[in-house]
């Protein structure tokens, strides 16, 4: 079929024989694509009216930004979810859990887990009303059957913000970090970052006590403090400005705030949060520092914005991303 014949068909001028031919011609999948390409071309040549594309795009973009539509879907908590199923699944789940429980010291039976995958965030309430926002690639372990009578213990690996609910009986809330350090609080707001390399606690409001196996004395933090636990176990405290304080909660709004941060460290951050390995072979580029607030929901968005500002190319391979400086 020639384009001319197909155009004739679109305008209703095809003969029955041509129609027959058209049917045959369309049996080839590639011709179907060609059919739509020509349909688009034909429509553009014979527009029935001229819509305002710019206005329509503005309208639809507004709709896309509607928080009701754009809301991040909270990841389902796998183990807690088990209990919501019914019937034989219930029985199967019980058997399975008991089996595993016996095997793993009943850890799974006694603790519920909240987990976020790379690039995901999750916000939830604990049994006592404490609010937790869990950043990407993080795990929080809480007693499955509610907190005990004396203390509330949770175990964190990753990054999270806690708004701890003060109880009537002044029950302590304790966060056990990845490096075995411990945060003890009554009722307050703070952000904890605890991964393989480092643990740090930023206090927004109230009072917390931080203890680590490597330091003899527990440290009492006041609002605006950031405490970092060194690999030696020693605790270092510094006072943060209001601006710096806000930076530590920026991740909740899917923003990344950097302050003279070398791209090398940015790469580490991306790996932690999104699971994407970022390689920078060029030493000059790795040492280049980034400053500013970057809105991004995934590694790609973040890197794209930064590539414009810091003048580098992004090269993707199967399992990693390589940054190359532009000449």
């Amino acid at each position, binding site marked *: 079929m*020639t384009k001319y014949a197909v155009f004739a068909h679109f305008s209703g001028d095809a003969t029955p024989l041509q129609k027959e031919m058209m049917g*045959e011609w369309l049996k080839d999948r590639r011709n179907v694509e060609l059919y739509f390409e020509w349909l688009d071309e034909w429509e553009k040549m014979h527009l029935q009216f001229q819509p305002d594309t710019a206005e329509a795009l503005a309208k639809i973009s507004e709709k896309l930004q509607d928080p009701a539509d754009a809301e991040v879907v909270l990841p389902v908590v796998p183990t807690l979810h088990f209990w919501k199923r019914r019937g034989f699944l219930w029985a199967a789940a019980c058997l399975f859990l008991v089996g595993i429980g016996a095997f793993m010291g009943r850890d799974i039976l006694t603790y519920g887990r909240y987990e976020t995958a790379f690039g995901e965030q999750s916000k939830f309430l604990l049994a006592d009303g404490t609010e937790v926002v869990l950043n990407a690639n993080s795990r929080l372990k809480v007693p499955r059957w509610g907190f005990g009578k004396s203390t509330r213990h949770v175990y964190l690996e990753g990054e999270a913000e806690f708004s701890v609910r003060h109880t009537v009986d002044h029950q302590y809330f304790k966060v056990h970090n990845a490096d075995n350090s411990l945060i003890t609080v009554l009722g307050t707001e703070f952000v904890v970052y605890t991964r393989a390399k480092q643990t740090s606690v930023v206090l927004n409001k109230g009072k917390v006590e931080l203890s680590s196996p490597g330091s003899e004395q527990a440290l009492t933090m006041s609002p605006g403090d950031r405490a970092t636990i060194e690999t030696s176990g020693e605790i270092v405290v510094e006072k943060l400005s209001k601006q710096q304080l806000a930076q530590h909660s920026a991740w909740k709004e899917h923003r990344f705030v950097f302050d003279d941060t070398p791209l090398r460290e940015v790469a580490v951050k991306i790996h932690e949060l999104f699971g994407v390995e970022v390689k920078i072979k060029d030493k000059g580029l790795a040492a280049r520092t980034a400053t500013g607030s970057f809105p991004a929901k995934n590694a790609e968005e973040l890197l794209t914005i930064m590539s414009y500002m810091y003048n580098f190319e992004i090269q993707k391979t199967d399992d990693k991303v390589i940054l190359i400086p532009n000449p």
Partner: protein
Amino acid sequence: MQNKTLNQGFAEKSFVQAEADNDREADSAAIDKEFFIRKVFETDVKKGYDLLFCHYYSSLCSHAVRYVYSREVAEDIVSEVFLAFWKKAVHTHITTSFRAYLFMSVRNKCLTYLKWELKNEMVEELPDATLVSMHLQPDTLIEFDELYLRIVKIVDGLPPQNQKVFLMSRFSGMSYQEIADKLQISRKAVEAHISRALTELRKALDGLN
């Protein structure tokens, strides 16, 4: 009016045919005319989306209006298709060209709309065009072509006054009363014209499932 533009198109027959030969060579590369848009999707989804929207919005609206004969409805249908495209992140699992997906989705929605407007039938929408290549079957494609051609013919064949009233109500956003005032006829007459046009249009859908 439409036929006039069509004829102009045919006047360029030799030019079009020469081009067609080139295109036949590029046959297998047909999808790759969207190569650039796909590339942008890879680096920036929103940018790719905007580009896609600007590229196809007007031709999709023009196509939709052949079925639904209302500018507003046509634009709504096309916007809905784009909204669904975004929500379902269609670019991540599409197996056809964007163009084929968009045109197919618009056609499906137009058909659903027509059945609802003319037959008062609430039909389930056809499944997503990305999932079923079945809907790209030759018969289905040609049936859709014939449907809009039938509709155009019916509107074209309406008595002049009848057609005028119908188009005024569909395209200028005028109320029945406003049309009645402008044409100096009664409101009842306007209603009669519209209902007659709709009765005729209903025939276009006869024989369709």
